[in-house]
């Protein structure tokens, strides 16, 4: 029997191949949609896991997470700089780091932050060291630049027609370990340098606040919190006028957060315990700031994305239905061509049940191979898409099968069972005399 099926398939290899390919492609479409959606969900969730608590100015929580966790360029409202000082001093906080966006280099976002984040983000460096001076930078593992290279920050993104800042050139001091997050594509620089480039040091903005206002409205997330903010002291080591136009790349970093630090778009916070995390979130939720757990914001986002997945799945199912219909067509034609063969088998004494079985088995075998191949193809396609996505976003997208995929396979196989029964029934119902006459 098996030999008969095999020799039959060998004889009808072209048609069999078409059936297998049709099934494989339709299955692959459905499988890759499911896998890719899961990869996106898992990948973004893991990326968010690195960040326990994000604090920003009042506004969209989703935007805060997208900008801080996924480094999506968009202007964020600013909160007062003193929040950082307060957090840094809070005993419940392991570490807190400000982040400021707005500049880019070769398409990589430049993130102004502190040595604190550079040290803690990836748990160490692959090579080099953390920035120690204003003109130094640390790059993410996926940034295709080499140590010692120059980074000329550009305001905004190249596609937005940003201008290159001439005030400061960073030199790459170190490279972080991979984190599987968008931060792997980031260039980390001292936030102090970002402030200086944009003329926003604590001591400067009284004089230059009005001037710089248009700048941070355009694209920068960094800027002054309040122009009316009073500060009594001009920084101990800086004279704003001296650095205007040309900054000193060798200037030392000052990470003691005074109450008059410039406004900040977001602060990443690592609380000491989970209880501390909840307390901090509670505390910084009121007033002018919002505090969010990125994971929680993403969960809400997925609820919305879930509907999009439904649509994709529906489209994939539609494609599968089309393939099923074309398979029915193929089988009806196929059985027509095999009428004589089937009639002869019966004439020579093969029982109808056995013919039903063999036709069913042969067709089911083809469809099952197609489904198997489809899963492999879908997996490969999802891997490819994930790689492409990781390339541009830095977020690692894990493509994994889950238990519910076995359910999908089972449904497809059950469908194949029914589908294969159709030609089998056609063959079963033929009168052998008619079949032989044909």
């Amino acid at each position: 029997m098996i030999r008969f099926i095999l020799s039959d398939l060998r004889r009808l290899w072209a048609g069999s191949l078409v059936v297998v390919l049709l099934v494989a492609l339709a299955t692959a479409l459905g499988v890759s949609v499911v896998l890719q959606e899961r990869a996106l969900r898992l990948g973004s969730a893991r990326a968010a896991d690195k960040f326990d608590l994000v604090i920003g100015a009042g506004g969209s929580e989703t935007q805060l997470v997208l900008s801080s966790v996924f480094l999506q360029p968009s202007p964020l409202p600013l909160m007062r700089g003193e929040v950082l000082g307060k957090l840094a001093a809070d005993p419940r906080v392991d570490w807190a780091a400000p982040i400021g966006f707005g500049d880019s280099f070769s398409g990589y976002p430049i993130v102004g932050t502190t040595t604190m984040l550079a040290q803690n983000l990836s748990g160490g460096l692959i090579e080099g060291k953390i920035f120690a001076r204003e003109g130094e930078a640390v790059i993410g593992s996926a940034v295709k630049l080499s140590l010692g290279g120059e980074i000329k920050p550009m305001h905004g993104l190249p596609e937005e027609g940003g201008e290159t800042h001439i005030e400061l050139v960073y030199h790459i001091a170190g490279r972080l370990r991979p984190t599987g997050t968008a931060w792997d594509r980031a260039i980390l620089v001292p936030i102090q340098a970002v402030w200086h480039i944009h003329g926003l040091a604590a001591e400067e903005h009284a004089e230059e606040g009005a001037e710089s206002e248009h700048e941070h409205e355009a694209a920068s997330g960094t800027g002054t919190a309040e122009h009316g903010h009073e500060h009594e002291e001009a920084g101990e080591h800086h004279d704003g006028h001296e650095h205007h136009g040309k900054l000193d790349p060798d200037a030392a970093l000052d990470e003691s957060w005074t109450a008059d630090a410039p406004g900040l778009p977001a602060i990443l916070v690592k609380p000491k315990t989970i209880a501390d995390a909840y307390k901090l979130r509670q505390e910084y939720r009121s007033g002018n700031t919002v505090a969010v757990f990125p994971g929680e914001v993403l969960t809400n986002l997925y609820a919305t994305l879930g509907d999009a997945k439904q649509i994709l799945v529906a489209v994939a199912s539609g494609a599968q239905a089309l393939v099923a219909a074309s398979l029915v067509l193929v089988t009806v034609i196929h059985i027509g061509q095999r009428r004589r063969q089937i009639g002869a088998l019966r004439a020579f004494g093969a029982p109808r049940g056995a013919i039903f079985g063999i036709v069913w088995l042969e067709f089911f075998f083809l469809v099952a191979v197609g489904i198997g191949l489809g899963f492999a193809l879908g997996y490969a396609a999802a891997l490819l898409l994930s790689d492409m996505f990781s390339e541009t976003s830095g977020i690692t997208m894990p493509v994994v099968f889950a238990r519910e995929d076995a359910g999908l396979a089972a449904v497809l196989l059950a469908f194949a069972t029914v589908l294969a029964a159709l030609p089998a029934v056609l063959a079963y119902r033929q009168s052998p005399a008619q079949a032989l006459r044909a």
Partner: protein
Amino acid sequence: MLALNIENLSVVFPGLSSPALAIGHLSIAAGSRVAITGASGSGKSTFVNIVAGLERTRQGRIRWNGEDIAGFSESRRDRFRAANIGLVMQEFHLFPGLSALENVLLPARFAGAATADIIERAHALLSTVGLSRPGQKIETMSRGEMQRVAIGRALLRKPGVIIADEPTASLDAESGEAVGDLILDLAIAEGSTLIVVSHDQRLASRLDRCITFGSGRISEDSTATAGEAA
């Protein structure tokens, strides 16, 4: 060895006014060898389909050793045919990709009847019909050899009757003659009733009895003359 008895048979195809086959009474004795002749469209093929149980009839009785296959269900007719009737057709209906032996055994395998004895018999039959390589692929054989394989297949389950429908028509004269001899010899050796539909006068003349069909009816039955000649 089976005897055939037909009574009041009438086969009507839709759209045709006169029956394709109408036989009031026909008896074929067990072990006899009968030739069926007649022009195209005279009802020979319908006769074969009906007596082999390939086609169902609504009117009349077709008794093989007293069993009326006209009253059988489709599946039961299939089983009856598999066990009792060996068919040889003009077209060989062999399956490419399989060897001679596999082709001989295929219907029995489908029916779950391929026991060790049957497999041994398949080997024996292939050597009886003059094929020395049971493993040879069917598509590499000559037409004469293919029909020999088909004869082996027909005889595999020791059928009580062998029905051959134009077994030599698609062969050249020489191999047609050899195949005709083979069928006749084997039917005698196996003690099977033999019904051969053929245009081949030489083959028909070697059988005990010759029934001629015309317009769906028996126009001539040479039992007497054949009997006298014998």
